[in-house]
C-alpha cells in the first residue's frame, strides 16, 4: 500500500528528527503510556522537549510572536498548556465531505481571499501565489514541488475540479521540514490513526495454535513423519521459554505518532487511552487521578497483568467509573489477590469479554453480584479460578444470554464444577466454545448438554475430565450431536478406550473437507492412529470385494451369438 508507506515515511522522518534532538539529552528508557501516567514530571519533561522541538520546527515556517514566546516558557507553564490542550477535544469537522472547508479553516487566518484548497491533480498558476500567502501551511519553495496535487479553486465551484488523489506516492514530503497538508486535516488524520490502531489490533489477535506435543514420540504419532515431528518437537521445547503475554511496544507506532506535532498528539491520545495495560494497582490509581480531569479517557480495553497481592484499587467513586463505562474488554491475568470492586460492574454495560485467570479472590458471590449487569457478555474466561463452583456458573448461565465462549478449566478443585454447570450452560445459553478441562463432569452431563446445545458447539475442551468414558464423546460424535465441531481436546481422558467413532467422525469431516482438530494425549493419539489404520484396511478390503462383484456382473452389451 503506497499510502501506508508514505504515511510511515512521514512519521519516521519526524521521529528520527525528534530522536536526533533527544540524543543530546539524557535518555529516558520507558516511554509507554503506562509509565507516562504515573510519573507525571518525567512525562511532562519529555513532552516539553517534544513541544520545544515542534516549536522550533514551526518557527521556521511561521514568524508568529506567540510561538516564539512559548519557547521561553518554563516547564510548569507548559504543563498548564498541556492540560488545556487535553481539555479541548480535537476539532473534528462534522462530516467527512467538508475537508475543503476544514483545510481552509486551518489556513483561514492568513488566507485573505475566499478560496479553499481542494485536492486535485490539476495545476494552475494562481495556486502557487495563494500558497505563498499562506506561510503556515507551506513555504513557497515546497509549494512549487507539491503543486501537482494541491489546487486552489474559488468556493463558488467547489466540486468542479475536485478529484481525489489517485497516486498516493506523490504525497511524499519533498521538503524535509514540511509535512503535506493532508496530515494537517484532523479528520483525515483521525482516520489514519484509526486505521493504524485497527491494523495493530488485528495483528494481536490470537489464532488457534495446536498445542505442543508431550514428547517426541507423541509428535511422531501426530505427524507420522520424522522430519516434521523433530521440527515440531524442537519448536515446542523453545516455546516454553517465551513469555505468554504481549506487552505494548514502548516505542510503538502509536507512541511515535504522539510526538509528531500538537495535532497528531491530540488525535492519537484518545486512541492510546482506549487500550491500557497496568502492572500494578498504584499506577492505575495515579492514572485515574491524573487523567480524569484532563483527558476524559474512555477506556475500552483494560488489562491488569501480574498485580502484586498487596496492592488494591483506591475506590475514587463515580469518577473512576466514569472513565470505565465504555469498557469492552477486561483482562486480569495472574493476579491472585486482585479484583475490581463488584459494584463497579453495574455501569459496565458494554462489557463483552472478561478474562480473569488464576485468581484466588473471585468466588461465587462475586459472580452472583456481577452477573445481572453482564447482559452483553460474550466471552468469559475463568481459567484456574478455583473458588468458583456450580453456583457461580449457573448465575452466569441464567443472566448472560449472549454468552458465546466460557472457559472453566482448572487443575485443582475440579470436583466443584459438575454436570450442573454444563447442563445449565446447555439449557440457557448458546455457547460455542466450552472449556471444562479438569472438571468432574460425567457422561450424563455430556449427553444432556449435547441434546440442548450440541448444534452450536464449535470448540470443546475436556482435557483431564477423568470421569468421561466411552459412552459419551464417541457416541455423541458417532450420532452427529456436534455437527459444527471443529476443535476437540481430549487429553488425558483415562477412561476413554474406544475411539472408533471419534476416528470415523474425523474421517467423515475430512472427506467433506471440513476442518477438525482433535487434540489428544500420547495414549489416545496412538489408539486413534491404530483405529484409523484398521478402518482404512477394512474399507480397502470392502472396496476390492465390491469391485470384484461389479466387474463380474453381466452387461447389456455382452456378446450373444448373432
Amino acid at each position, binding site marked *: 500500500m503506497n499510502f501506508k508507506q508514505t504515511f510511515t515515511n512521514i512519521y519516521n522522518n519526524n521521529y528520527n528528527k525528534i530522536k536526533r534532538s533527544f540524543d543530546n539529552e539524557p535518555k529516558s528508557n520507558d516511554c509507554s503510556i503506562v509509565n507516562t501516567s504515573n510519573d507525571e514530571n518525567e512525562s511532562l519533561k519529555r513532552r516539553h522537549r517534544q513541544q520545544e522541538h515542534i516549536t522550533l520546527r514551526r518557527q521556521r515556517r511561521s514568524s508568529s510572536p506567540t510561538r516564539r514566546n512559548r519557547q521561553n516558557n518554563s516547564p510548569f507553564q507548559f504543563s498548564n498548556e498541556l492540560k488545556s490542550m487535553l481539555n479541548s477535544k480535537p476539532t473534528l469537522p462534522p462530516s467527512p465531505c467538508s475537508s475543503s472547508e476544514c483545510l481552509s479553516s486551518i489556513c483561514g487566518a492568513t488566507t485573505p481571499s475566499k478560496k479553499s484548497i481542494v485536492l486535485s491533480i490539476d495545476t494552475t498558476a494562481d495556486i502557487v501565489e495563494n500558497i505563498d500567502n499562506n506561510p503556515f501551511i507551506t513555504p513557497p519553495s515546497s509549494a512549487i514541488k507539491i503543486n501537482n496535487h494541491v489546487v486552489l479553486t474559488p468556493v463558488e465551484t467547489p466540486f468542479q475540479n475536485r478529484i481525489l488523489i489517485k497516486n498516493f506516492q506523490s504525497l511524499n514530503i519533498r521538503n524535509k521540514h514540511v509535512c503535506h497538508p493532508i496530515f494537517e486535516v484532523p479528520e483525515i488524520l483521525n482516520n489514519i490513526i484509526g486505521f493504524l490502531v485497527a491494523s495493530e489490533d488485528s495483528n494481536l489477535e490470537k489464532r488457534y495454535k495446536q498445542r505442543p506435543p508431550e514428547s517426541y514420540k507423541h509428535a511422531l504419532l501426530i505427524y507420522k513423519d520424522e522430519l516434521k515431528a523433530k521440527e515440531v518437537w524442537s519448536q515446542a521445547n523453545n516455546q516454553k521459554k517465551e513469555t505468554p503475554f504481549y506487552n505494548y511496544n514502548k516505542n510503538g507506532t502509536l507512541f511515535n505518532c504522539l510526538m509528531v506535532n500538537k495535532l497528531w498528539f491530540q488525535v492519537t491520545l484518545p486512541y492510546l487511552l482506549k487500550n491500557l495495560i497496568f502492572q500494578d494497582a498504584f499506577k492505575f490509581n495515579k492514572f485515574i487521578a491524573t487523567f480524569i480531569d484532563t483527558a476524559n479517557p474512555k477506556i475500552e480495553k483494560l488489562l491488569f497483568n501480574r498485580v502484586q497481592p498487596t496492592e488494591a484499587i483506591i475506590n475514587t467513586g463515580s469518577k473512576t467509573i466514569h472513565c470505565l463505562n465504555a469498557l469492552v474488554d477486561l483482562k486480569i491475568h495472574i493476579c491472585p489477590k486482585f479484583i475490581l470492586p463488584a459494584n463497579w460492574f453495574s455501569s459496565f454495560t458494554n462489557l463483552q469479554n472478561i478474562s480473569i485467570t488464576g485468581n484466588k479472590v473471585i468466588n461465587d458471590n462475586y459472580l452472583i453480584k456481577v452477573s445481572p449487569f453482564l447482559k452483553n457478555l460474550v466471552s468469559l474466561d475463568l481459567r484456574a479460578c478455583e473458588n468458583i463452583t456450580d453456583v457461580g456458573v449457573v448465575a452466569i448461565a441464567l443472566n448472560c444470554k449472549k454468552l458465546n465462549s466460557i472457559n472453566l478449566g482448572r487443575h485443582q478443585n475440579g470436583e466443584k464444577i459438575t454436570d450442573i454447570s454444563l447442563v445449565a450452560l446447555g439449557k440457557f445459553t448458546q455457547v460455542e466454545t466450552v472449556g471444562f478441562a479438569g472438571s468432574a463432569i460425567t457422561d450424563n452431563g455430556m449427553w444432556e448438554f449435547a441434546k440442548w446445545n450440541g448444534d452450536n458447539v464449535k470448540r470443546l475442551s475436556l482435557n483431564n475430565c477423568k470421569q468421561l468414558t466411552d459412552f459419551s464423546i464417541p457416541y455423541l460424535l458417532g*450420532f452427529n450431536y456436534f455437527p459444527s465441531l471443529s476443535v476437540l481436546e481430549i487429553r488425558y481422558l483415562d477412561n476413554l478406550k474406544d475411539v472408533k467413532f471419534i476416528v470415523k467422525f474425523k474421517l*467423515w469431516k475430512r472427506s467433506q473437507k471440513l476442518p477438525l482438530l482433535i487434540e489428544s494425549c500420547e495414549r489416545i493419539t496412538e489408539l486413534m492412529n491404530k483405529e484409523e489404520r484398521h478402518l482404512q484396511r477394512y*474399507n480397502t478390503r*470392502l472396496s476390492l470385494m465390491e469391485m470384484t462383484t461389479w466387474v463380474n456382473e453381466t452387461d447389456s452389451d455382452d*456378446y450373444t451369438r448373432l
Partner: protein
Amino acid sequence: MQQNTPTSINRHDPIPGVKNQIDIQIGLVGDAQVGKTSLMVKYVQNIFDNEYTQTLGVNFLKRKVKLRQTEIIFSLMDLGGQSEFINMLPLAAVGSSVIIFLFDLTRPVTLKSIKGWFRQAKGLNDLAIPILVGTKFDLFYTMDSQYQNEISKVAMEYSQVMDAPLIFCSTAKSIHIQKIFKIALAKLFNLTLTINEINLPGDPLLIYKDKGNNCINQSTNNNNNNTNLRRKSSHGHTSNNNNNNNTPIQASPIAVRSSYNHRHH
C-alpha cells in the same frame, strides 16, 4: 485412493462410513479413424455418431461408477491419431494406469502400426497395463471368414507378445464396451475375473486370462493397498516383482517387430 461421502445427513443420524474413491486414468491410442473418440463417447455418454470428427490433440472425459462403499472414476484421455499429434503422446501415456491400444478390424494396416504405438507408449510409461482392442466388429463380421480368421490370429499373437488382454468391440452395435473398462479395472487391482473367455475366430474375441498379470501375480496379498497403488504410480517406480518374472519378449519391443514382419508380407 481418496475418500468421499455424502455431505449432509439428518440430525442425530449415525455418521456414514467413509467411501473410497478410486481414480483411474486411461489413455486411448491408435491410428486415425480407428474409433478412439467413439469408444470414449460411447462408454461415457452411451452415444454413437456415424459422422467422423477428427480429434485435435487430446480429448478428455470422465465417467463415475458408484458402488455402495466405493466410487470409481474413469478419466479417459483420447489422443488424436494423426502423426502430428504424436508429440502429445505423453499426455495420454504418462500418468495413465491403463493404456488401451485400438486398431480397426477392417484395416490390417492399423493393427500393424500398433507395434509403433506400443513401443512409444512403453518408453514413456513402463508400468501401465496395455489392453489391445479391435474396433468396428459389426463391419468386420460381414467380411469373408478367411480374412476374419487371419486377423483374429494375428491379433491374438500381438496380444501374446504385448502381454495385453485382447477384446474385439463394436461401438455402433454396442458389443463389449463395458467389458473393456471392467477388465482394465480388474487387471489394475488384480481382481478375480470369472467372465467366460471368447476365443473362437469369427466371434468378438475376449481373451484376458494370463495376460497383463505378470506385474502383480507374485504378490498374493492382493488386499494390500501398496501393491495396488504401485501400478498407478509413475513409471520411474519399478516394482520388485518385475525382475523375477520378466519374459524376454516383453522386455524388448524390437522382438515384436522381428517376429511379425515376415508374417504380413
